[in-house]
């Protein structure tokens, strides 16, 4: 397994995805000279405002064993669809993530740039559709609301 593979064996990480983790992954890319491009998606908690209240944080919960199984399926699908893809990294938060903090990090590496960019977008779509993760928006007036992704 590659160094990045070892660093990202666990998909779910407690709390926000830290910038330290992200920069150490970027740092580790220098060992991976087979790739010519890396496409990155960073998802962060948006402070949505519905006119009366503002999102302060999101509380994520997950079905851990199934997240692991589904993430493997997603990676397999991507490797099958894009023959130039070398590596796929998925990190997703579990627990509390405040507005402005990072809750999802996806990085797809390929020999040439086009597949990295296309496969990264596709990976994010599959994450939204397939990963058993739930989010509860917590507002600044201490109310909360469960959200769901649209593709259901």
């Amino acid at each position, binding site marked *: 397994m590659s160094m990045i593979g070892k660093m990202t064996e666990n998909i779910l990480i407690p709390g926000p995805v830290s910038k330290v983790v992200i920069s150490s992954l970027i740092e580790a890319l220098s060992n991976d000279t087979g790739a010519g491009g890396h496409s990155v998606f960073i998802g962060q908690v948006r402070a949505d405002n519905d006119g009366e209240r503002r999102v302060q944080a999101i509380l994520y919960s997950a*079905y851990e064993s199934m997240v692991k199984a*589904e993430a493997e399926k997603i990676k397999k699908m991507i490797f099958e669809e894009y023959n130039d893809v070398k590596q796929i990294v998925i990190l997703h938060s579990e627990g509390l993530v405040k507005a402005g903090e990072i809750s999802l990090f996806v990085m797809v590496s390929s020999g040439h740039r086009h597949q990295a960019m296309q496969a990264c977008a596709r990976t994010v779509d599959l994450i939204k559709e397939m*990963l*058993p*993760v739930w*989010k509860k928006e917590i507002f600044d007036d201490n109310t909360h609301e469960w959200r*769901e*992704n649209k593709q259901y």
Partner: protein
Amino acid sequence: MEINVLFFGVLAEVTKTGFKHYSGIKSFRDLMLRIQDEFPEIVHYNYRIALNNEIINEDPELKNSDEIAYMPPFAGG
């Protein structure tokens, strides 16, 4: 049969538990009825059911120690 049942997202809140252990289960139907009796409010929610990490579309055969999960629409990312 002994079956473990997990509730996620809004259903963990509705059932006031994330986990229930059921004993003496005869079949999947039997389990569904036991759960509906105990938590009648879940019928108002949209959810899918997974058996041992796989989403099911029809009634499966259960084995002892199987894990069933009640999963509301996903909201990852």
